[in-house]
């Protein structure tokens, strides 16, 4: 078991009413799973993903990540946890425009204690793995969307996280590019990386081993 959510509630107060963004979420993710979270707009998919990624708070409930009780941890400790074990992939790629492909992939390593030669080896490995060696000195604006997302995934993977969180990774891509990315995820999952993705697309969801449907912050089926 990699993480477990127990009776997670998250709400905002709007005009005296309590609006639930997450309503009594209960679920467990085991190592090696590939989970898709689906649901209509505003159902709380991204919020759930952010809670899992520890980027966002929740109001009530218990969250255990690798046997650490996240809900009792201090902000700093929590940040250390997600930096160590979680990689993020975004719909809009979110590459740093001023950095080259190589430097973008290298960035997470800068904040960990890796020597410069170690970093070089790790980035080279990623470039190799994703077949983008030839593009390492280009800037994000010089790449297609699909290529940018590849770099985004490479960046997420470079520090070998246990869990990849992907928020609509193919949302900005055309279908061919999207399919390539999904193939890649599948392959990563086969290699043992745990993945949780948020998606709108039934097709994408089929790559996963399990799908969670959300509606109004509530898990509809599991």
């Amino acid at each position, binding site marked *: 078991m990699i993480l477990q959510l127990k009776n997670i509630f998250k709400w905002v107060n709007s005009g005296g009413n309590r609006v639930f963004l997450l309503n009594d979420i209960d679920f467990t993710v085991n190592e090696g799973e590939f989970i898709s979270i689906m649901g209509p707009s505003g159902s709380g998919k991204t919020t759930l993903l952010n809670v899992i990624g520890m980027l966002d708070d929740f109001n009530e409930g218990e969250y255990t990540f690798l046997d650490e009780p996240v809900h009792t941890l201090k902000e700093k400790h929590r940040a250390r946890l997600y*930096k160590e074990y979680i990689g993020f992939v975004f719909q809009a790629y979110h590459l*740093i425009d*001023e*950095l080259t492909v190589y*430097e973008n992939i290298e*960035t*997470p390593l800068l*904040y960990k204690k890796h020597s410069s030669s170690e970093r070089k080896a790790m980035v080279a490995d990623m470039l190799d793995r994703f077949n983008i060696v030839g593009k390492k000195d280009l800037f994000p604006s010089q790449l297609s969307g699909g290529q940018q997302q590849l770099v985004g995934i490479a960046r997420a993977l470079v520090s070998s996280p246990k869990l990849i969180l992907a928020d609509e990774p193919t949302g900005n891509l055309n279908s061919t590019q999207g399919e390539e990315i999904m193939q890649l995820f599948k392959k990563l999952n086969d290699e043992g990386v745990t993945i949780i993705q948020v998606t709108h697309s039934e097709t994408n969801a089929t790559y996963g081993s399990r799908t969670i449907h959300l509606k109004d912050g509530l898990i509809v089926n599991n």
Partner: protein
Amino acid sequence: MIRNYFKIAWRNLLKNKSFSFINIFGLSIGVAACILITIYILHESSYDSGVPNSENVYRMTGQYIEDSRVNNGIHFSANTASTVLKDFEEVENSGRLMANQLFYRAGSNEIRFDGEDMQHHEEGFTYADQSMIDIMGVNMVYGDVTTALTKPKTMVISQRIATKYFKSENPVGRIMYLNGNNEDPFEITGVMEDFASNSHLDYDFLITLKDVEFGEGEQTRWIQNNYFTYIVLKSGTNVAAFEKKMGTTLIEKYIKPAFQSAGFAGWEQMHERIKMYLQPLTDINLHSAHISFESSSRNDIKIIWIFGIVALFILIIASINFVNLSTAKSANRAKEVGLRKVVGSTRSQLIGQFLAESILISLIAFIVGIALSALLMPLFRSMSGIDLIMPWSSFGFIPIILMASIFVGILAGLYPSFYLSNFNPINVLKGKLSSGSKSSGLRSSLVVFQFTISIILIVGTLIVNQQMNFILNSKVGFEKDQVVQIYSTNILNERVETFKEELEKLPGVSSVSVSDYLPIEGTKRNGNSFVNEGKDGIDENIPGQAWVIDEDYIETMGMSLVDGRNFIASRASDEQAVIINQAMAKELNLIEPIGKRISRYGELYEVIGVVEDFNFDTMKTSVRPLCFFSGISPSITSVKINTSNVSAVLSSMEAKWKAFVPNMAFRYEFMDASFSKMYDNVNRIKSIFTAFAILAILVACLGLLALSAYMVEQRNKEMSIRKVLGASVQTIFKLLTKNFLALIIIALSVAIPIAYYLMQTWLQDYEYRIDMSWSVFAVAGIIAMTIALVTISYHAVKSALINPAKILRSE
């Protein structure tokens, strides 16, 4: 890691070219201003620090209190120096300078070298003791430094003069004659290195004081004060205690008895009215503003403070630009911040990164700033009138600049880096960040601050300029226009009368007068004391000037008699007559002065006329009492001309001069020019101040330009929608500019009272001053508004005219 920081910082610089330009250029201007002013301040405060043992050298200053009026002076009697050395064991050495032009040969002279024919005019003569050479640590190029002035009739000349007349030849042993006096040779016994630009002394000729006496008993008389007196104290002396002891002893032991035997009424109270002080040598340049008869080239510590503060303000204004632009542009960096946080950066690492960026900008700005200041140096040199140099080679220049740039970088980058690094990644990545508006309160107050300073500087500049023009153009009690002063006419001896008559015959000349006493600072002055007839030893003596003039003086100078008559040349009895000014009449309490007699040291003179008060000091002081006596003082001949063909008159005068004195150049000056020279120092300060005020405003406007560009960009979408909905160009322009104008108005209302107070304080220094009218503030306000409006308009107009379809399509 650091390399990575700098890399991204560099790419950001290149990406936002105009933003970087404004940041760096603005900061460079601030840095250049600071460097120049720092060099200026360092120069001004380094005066006389090069003198060996300077920390133990003092100049004596004195205070004379009269009817609660305090006069500070630096003139002491001839025997003060030797007495102090003899009476106090704390005193190691003492020396005197006598540069008072009242005495023959001090000031300026016509010189001629043995075996040559030409007379040359030279200035910068002073009498000096040999001990002054020792005290000031004068270095000799030729001659013996220890004995140069020990023999009578010897003289030391500066290297500048030696080179001018003797090229590389050694002039020691050469003979020099002064003012055509061929029976009175002076021997050149030494050539000294020129006084440094940061020495308070600036003489080219030191004439020995050995065996010199100006009138009988002058060297031993206590009440005739003409000498600058310097002393060296043994190190470790308690200066304050010694100062007190010295003052008391001198007054009780010498001055009181001297006044008593001179029959001076208030001699017993002298200890209450005279105070003596020791002024450290290194304080002379900056701390002598209170001393009258001090050279007008002295600076004032107040000016140093003002300049320092102005320079600092320019730097602060430039740093504020940096803070404002960085936080305004924060939206552009927000994504990067969020991402870096997500992939593992801690907040302190981000702060480090942004600080590194601002340090990089600061470093570049400092390099450009140094280049800029080196480039502006010649201009600044001529503005300040000082031979300032970039201290490239001076120890510590580069490290200090480096440290300063890092310091400025950190200071300017501190707030932006805390602000930027505080973004919450989730908000940023969701795109929820309300771009850059969060700190708009702070930005607004910083803009208000910038413009407050700018407006104060504008007001200051306007008022300083007005006051200067007021002084230069106001009625000073005499007509300075169309008067030519011909110098060195004393060389003519008794023929000066004939020369005067010849000049009067020239066409275009309306009157000619011979007198050394002109209402121009730097011409001859003296100090006598006067009392009403029969009140010698009873009434208080009134100190006053005693000017020797001829009967054409009042007409030539355009002065006016308010009562009585002028001197009449042929009337012998006029030798016992006196014309007084209104101030003298008032001081002597003469209600109907004509026909009354006044006493000067027991000798009686009949008042035949009262001349309207005219200014003969700078306009900083009120008119002091003065008397005119009839006679000849022949060094300067003033010619009033009444033609517009000035060059014709000048050349005919020169022809006359050549006929009289074939071996000397014709030297003249227009009186209005020499008058404005009195205010050279003030004028210089005015132009420096103006220049830096303009710089400050320029930097502030640069910031405003960038900020408005950014704000307009932020609201492009809003404006496009408004336009689609039917808003006119004007309404959009108004919408975009009104916020900024509100800030300027706030700045105005803050700045005006401060500026009023500051300038009121400054004007207090001037006896004759302008009234500050509201119009100055109105003009300053309009200038600030206009500059700001034009700055903002550039982008506002661009935005108002843009095609909304373009903006909205890209959304």
